[in-house]
């Protein structure tokens, strides 16, 4: 294992120090491992907070700032944060208009946020939750844990953060959150496994001529493994299941081509070109896009595609100013 770290047990604490030092717009509660905006939540603004296991940077801490999140809880590596972290973030970020928890759909995340919500409710803060579940690699069913929350989380945090920033009340913010959640789908793949520092070796072995299709963001193996193929073929394997799952025609879409952390930008641009070709062929209108590393899986090489069926209101919220380490425009 080759990593720029001091000690496997200190990775997150040390990284939080660096984040605090690099970004004047945030402050860090090191005890609870929560990243907050430097300024307290404006009275009357719905607070939008998120959190999850670490290792997906810039998600979530890199999205704390004006126009996006009010706070983010950093869990252990790939491990959802604990309820007391979320409870601290909820109390601290509340501006009197309630707190929205953005949760990626994983058993651990859901249960920990649930416990935090129960505790927060006792304290009188209105807590609402939106669970992102956009990964079409996972079959959805009443009898399973359901789909994973992956790339759509980035888009949802931006759009919902903008809605809250505009001053919408909790019901208005929730309505947007559900609309985004309903209209977004993702699919990912890996060329290599990531290496969790505490594990010290790759989570899975992948021969030099094979790839995993349908991976999540925690180094979980994907749906299946197959011979390495061309960017063009890979794009098809990511885009097809998404288009099969939801009809994206007739609406302006937001498309994200996301890197898993170990793939260089030149390959992400190349992949984006392939994805656009397929979406064009399918008659889909791309109104906005993001290409880069936004929701990563440590040092994994690979990428994911997210498509969100937007509308004028969602596009306007997308375009609204955002000032975070991970996404910034208009300010």
């Amino acid at each position, binding site marked *: 294992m080759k990593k720029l770290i001091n000690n496997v047990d200190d990775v997150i604490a040390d990284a939080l120090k660096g984040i605090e030092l690099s970004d004047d717009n945030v402050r860090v509660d090191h005890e609870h491992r929560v990243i907050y905006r430097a300024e307290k939540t404006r009275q009357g603004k719905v607070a939008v907070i998120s959190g999850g*296991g670490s290792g997906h940077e810039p998600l979530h801490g890199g999205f704390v700032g004006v126009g996006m999140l009010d706070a983010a809880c950093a*869990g*252990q*590596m*790939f*491990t*959802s*944060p*604990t*309820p*007391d972290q979320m409870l601290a973030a909820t109390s601290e970020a509340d501006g009197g208009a309630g707190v929205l928890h953005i949760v990626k759909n*994983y*058993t*651990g995340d859901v*249960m*920990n946020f*649930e*416990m935090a919500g129960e505790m927060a409710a006792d304290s009188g803060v209105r807590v609402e939750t939106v669970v992102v579940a956009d*990964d079409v*690699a*996972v*079959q959805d069913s009443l*009898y*399973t*844990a359901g789909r*994973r929350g992956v790339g759509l989380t980035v888009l949802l945090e931006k759009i919902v953060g903008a809605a809250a920033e505009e001053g919408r009340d909790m019901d208005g913010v929730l309505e947007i959150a559900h609309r985004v959640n309903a209209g977004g789908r993702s699919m990912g793949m890996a060329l290599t496994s990531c290496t*969790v520092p*505490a*594990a010290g070796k790759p*989570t*899975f072995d992948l021969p030099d001529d094979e790839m995993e299709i349908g991976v*999540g963001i*925690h*180094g*979980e*193996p994907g*749906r*299946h493994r197959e011979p390495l193929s061309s960017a063009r073929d890979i794009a098809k394997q990511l885009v097809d299941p998404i288009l099969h799952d939801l009809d994206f025609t007739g609406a302006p879409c937001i498309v994200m081509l996301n890197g898993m952390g170990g793939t260089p930008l030149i390959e992400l641009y190349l992949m984006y070109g392939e994805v656009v070709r397929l979406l064009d062929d399918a008659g889909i209108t791309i109104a906005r896009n993001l290409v880069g590393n936004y929701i990563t899986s440590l040092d994994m090489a690979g990428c994911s595609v997210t498509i969100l069926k937007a509308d004028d209101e969602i596009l306007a919220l997308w375009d609204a100013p955002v000032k975070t380490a991970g996404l910034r425009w208009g300010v």
Partner: protein
Amino acid sequence: QSASVATLVEWLHQFGSLVEQNKGYLTDLDSAIGDADHGSNMARGMTAVLNQVADPGAADALFKKVGMTLVSSVGGASGPLYGTFFMRFATGLGDGTEVTPEALVSSLRAGLDGVISRGKAELGDKTMVDAMTPAVVAIEGSVASGESLADATRAGAEAARRGRESTIAMVARKGRASYLGERSKGHQDPGATSTTYLFEALAASLDGV
């Protein structure tokens, strides 16, 4: 014969050692069908727990603290689940320093119910429930038929082991392994494995008591 708080603290120590010794193994199991952290998660949690049991006090307070410590130090799926297990377990123990076999049995059942209501897993979903359920059932049965706690918990550990083995053939329907669908078959569930340590530790701590 009832179990003293000291014996139950010994249980926690034994569980902590088993987790620590098998940390890499648990993480390896989790690498195959999860995200390679179950060993570190449980080890972090049990280290936090064992830092707090020097002065145990009453049985119910002790295990409430154990549960809360796990909830606030483990995270992931196992944190709320083991945390809930111990918090519910605590409720039936009373505020004394001795726990009767009956109280222990009903507390274990309460813990299992807590895990099930928190995680909504059923038998056969390839989770810790597949080890925990048979273990609790076996202990209940043994105690009901008048066996000693030592014998009952030994039977519980044996049942947990069988439950753990049974997860190998299962297709996961809950937790992270469920994303693998059919590919989860052939792999032993990490949570069922750590749960087996929990019951092996219980049997070991009650051995000879």
